[in-house]
């Protein structure tokens, strides 16, 4: 039914255009029924996009190769799970997913807030609609997933590296993040357009921003793990432009989540917050552009296409209109309060914001530099790993330290004496850790040593905050220590959930420092029976086997692994030769030590006809803390996202007091 899919998308485009025009007219003229009609159009646009998506999904599952998209991205032999993931594996499908999530988020955000903040929502609808018009235009006129052809006997199949369980979750999570950032953007622009610059746009979008930010964070970690186990180069993050494309909006959103607290607590940084929201959304568009346009050379970019100029034009219009609105509302955005002291929590959060933004812009420069150099000099100059690593150290390490300082400094101003009292123990813990690590020989990498020392400092502040808070709750009448801890968490989920997220960043920092600054590598061509030694491990190459699966021929080299006198079993590494796709992928062997978090990582780089194999082997200390950090990050995000009844009651009371309905 490609015709129905096409028709559904044309209706989506019509509904989005109506929501934009009618919504803007209703907001400008103050027409109630027209405003409700525009809101309904946005909801209907979600339903029609859902119909189109279901048709594409059905075509994928039926292997209907009369759909060009299905023939290009799947094959008969492709397992069902990857056939489903082909929905977002290609350009047209992923743009359709963007539109589906966008209209779903738009409909939900409007529905949830249309009584509580309805004077604001009236202006939010046309902003959402404008973004939906752009994406529905793309899938209708530029990159339709419903173009048809005479069906070939079989499809072209899927890029082998995408045939991985992580691809079932990694791209959709990134899209949830990218598209989720449309919600704060639409509310910010709605607030600017309407002049309703009170806190409601922040309150209405806080959880949406957190959700988008958490999805981007988890999506990136899943992507890193996918790269680690599937791409087979021995690392998990290569500063690839497409990887950076997801990191940049996440950094901007992280800055916003911190600076928004300053606006809520002190009424400051109102212009800054709006600018951060605009930046985060623009970077999410830029990320989609990088991934989908084929403008950059990336292992994650699987397409060359004509959508680039459309995206660039839309990003340009978005930035110009948004900045124009900020400039127009500047007088109303001026903060009533000023920074009282450079030693205060708001100042620490501000420093954190500046560092996050500096890191984000440094990465952005690294991403656009090859494009600019190609445009100016006719030659694309790529900034390598050392460029990014330098800025990660320069901005990332102070950020890590600030993560421990900021939450423990008083709002408004803190005396030096209180700083000494507050940070006495964490500083001692950090110094002791640093000295101990030096003694143990970790001085070979100064950035690694500094990262560990700062991590110890932050870890100590987090433990101290939980211990002090629980003790205070117990003193305030909690019957037991677990009860006091539960009460502490439930009474301020945002703060203590935030500490859990900070703990995950500490784990991440330790994992990154350990696996990149203190790793070791060995390479050797081995014949059967020969061995290789690295980091205390001995690997003996035993055999080479070949087996056939549904869609690939798997060749595996088996190695016996020992450490000292301990037999650690066997490891398999090799290659998969995909028949239909006619591509070969590296299939690495990994042995994880759950106690130390260390990985032994084996790549069979080259397999010769005589059975000898060229192996590259890594020992990566603490790398598993990175994946553990993902779980802790998820826990912290869930705690922070959990609805807070006290806050809800306060907001309802505030809304009632000005005559707005009590329901949200």
């Amino acid at each position: 039914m490609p015709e129905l899919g096409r028709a559904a998308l044309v209706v989506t485009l019509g509904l989005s255009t109506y929501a934009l025009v009618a919504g803007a007219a209703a907001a400008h003229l103050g027409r109630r029924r027209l405003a409700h009609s525009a809101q309904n159009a946005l909801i209907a646009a979600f339903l029609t996009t859902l119909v189109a998506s279901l048709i594409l999904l059905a075509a994928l599952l039926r292997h209907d190769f009369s759909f060009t998209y299905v023939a290009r991205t799947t094959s008969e032999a492709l397992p069902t799970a990857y056939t489903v993931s082909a929905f977002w594996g290609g350009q047209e499908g992923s743009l359709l997913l963007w539109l589906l999530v966008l209209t779903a988020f738009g409909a939900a955000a409007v529905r949830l807030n249309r009584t509580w903040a309805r004077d604001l929502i009236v202006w939010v609808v046309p902003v959402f609609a404008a973004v939906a018009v752009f994406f529905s235009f793309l899938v209708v006129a530029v990159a339709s997933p419903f173009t048809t052809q005479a069906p070939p006997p079989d499809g072209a199949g899927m890029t082998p590296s995408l045939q991985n369980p992580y691809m079932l979750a990694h791209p959709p999570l990134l899209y949830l993040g990218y598209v989720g950032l449309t919600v704060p953007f639409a509310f910010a622009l709605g607030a600017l357009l309407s002049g309703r610059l009170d806190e409601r746009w922040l309150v209405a979008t806080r959880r949406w921003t957190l959700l988008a930010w958490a999805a981007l964070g988890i999506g990136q970690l899943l992507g890193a793990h996918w790269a680690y186990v599937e791409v087979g180069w021995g690392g998990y993050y290569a500063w690839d432009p497409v990887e950076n494309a997801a990191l940049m909006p996440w950094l901007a959103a992280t800055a916003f989540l911190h600076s928004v607290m300053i606006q809520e607590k002190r009424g400051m940084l109102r212009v800054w917050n709006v600018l951060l929201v605009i930046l985060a959304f623009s970077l999410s568009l830029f990320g989609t552009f990088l991934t989908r346009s084929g403008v950059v050379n990336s292992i994650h970019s699987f397409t060359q296409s004509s959508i680039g100029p459309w995206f660039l034009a839309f990003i340009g219009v978005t930035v110009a209109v948004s900045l124009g609105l900020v400039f127009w509302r500047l007088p109303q955005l001026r903060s009533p309060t000023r920074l009282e002291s450079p030693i205060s929590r708001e100042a620490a959060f501000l420093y954190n914001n500046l560092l996050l933004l500096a890191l984000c812009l440094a990465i952005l420069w690294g991403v656009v530099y090859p494009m600019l150099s190609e445009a100016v000099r006719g030659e694309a100059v790529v900034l390598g790993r050392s460029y990014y690593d330098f800025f990660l150290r320069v901005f990332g390490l102070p950020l890590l330290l600030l993560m421990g300082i900021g939450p423990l400094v008083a709002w408004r101003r803190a005396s030096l004496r209180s700083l000494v009292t507050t940070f006495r123990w964490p500083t001692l813990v950090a110094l002791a850790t640093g000295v101990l690590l030096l003694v143990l020989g970790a001085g070979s990498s100064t950035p690694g040593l500094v990262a560990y020392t700062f991590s110890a400092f932050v870890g100590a502040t987090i433990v101290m905050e939980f211990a002090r808070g629980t003790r205070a709750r117990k003193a305030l009448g909690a019957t037991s220590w677990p009860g006091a801890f539960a009460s502490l968490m439930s009474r301020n989920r945002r703060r203590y959930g935030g500490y859990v997220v900070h703990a995950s960043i500490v784990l991440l920092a330790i994992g990154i420092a350990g696996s990149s600054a203190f790793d070791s590598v060995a390479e050797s061509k081995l014949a059967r029976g020969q061995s290789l030694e690295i980091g205390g491990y001995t690997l003996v190459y035993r055999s080479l086997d070949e087996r056939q699966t549904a869609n690939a021929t798997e060749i595996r080299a088996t190695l016996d692994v020992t450490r000292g006198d301990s037999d650690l079993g066997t490891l398999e590494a090799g290659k998969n030769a995909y028949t239909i796709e006619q591509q070969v992928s590296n299939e690495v062997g990994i042995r994880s030590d759950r106690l130390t978090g260390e990985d032994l990582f084996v790549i069979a780089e080259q397999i010769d006809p005589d059975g000898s194999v060229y192996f590259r082997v890594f020992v990566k200390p603490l790398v598993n803390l990175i994946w553990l950090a993902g779980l802790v990050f998820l826990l912290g995000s869930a705690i922070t996202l959990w609805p807070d009844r006290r806050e809800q009651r306060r907001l309802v009371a505030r809304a009632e007091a000005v005559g707005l309905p009590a329901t949200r």
Partner: protein
Amino acid sequence: MTIAVVLAAALAVVCVILVALPFLREPDPETDVLDELDEGERRRLELLESRDRALSALKELEFDHRTGTITDDDYREQVGPLRREAATALQSLQRDTPGTHGDASTGEGRPVGRRT
């Protein structure tokens, strides 16, 4: 092809009905004007935000002092201005709504649901 055209037409009709629903439900409304917050209500909303901000800051300061995160000196320096800020917001709210006898600190007793 025919079924697809029929289904597409049906989809379009459903969407048109959904979009036209506000006009179908109220063909001849008493008023079609969006009810927005007037200047007074917006001012009141700002005052409520200031009040909540000050009370929340006070609560956090008290808890941080109790946990030991904030020292006695910092607490003494900050608690006064914060209390004054909260009191000013409460007084402004009371001045802003003459004739009401509710509890301004909780919002109880305020007119509810005028806009339904």
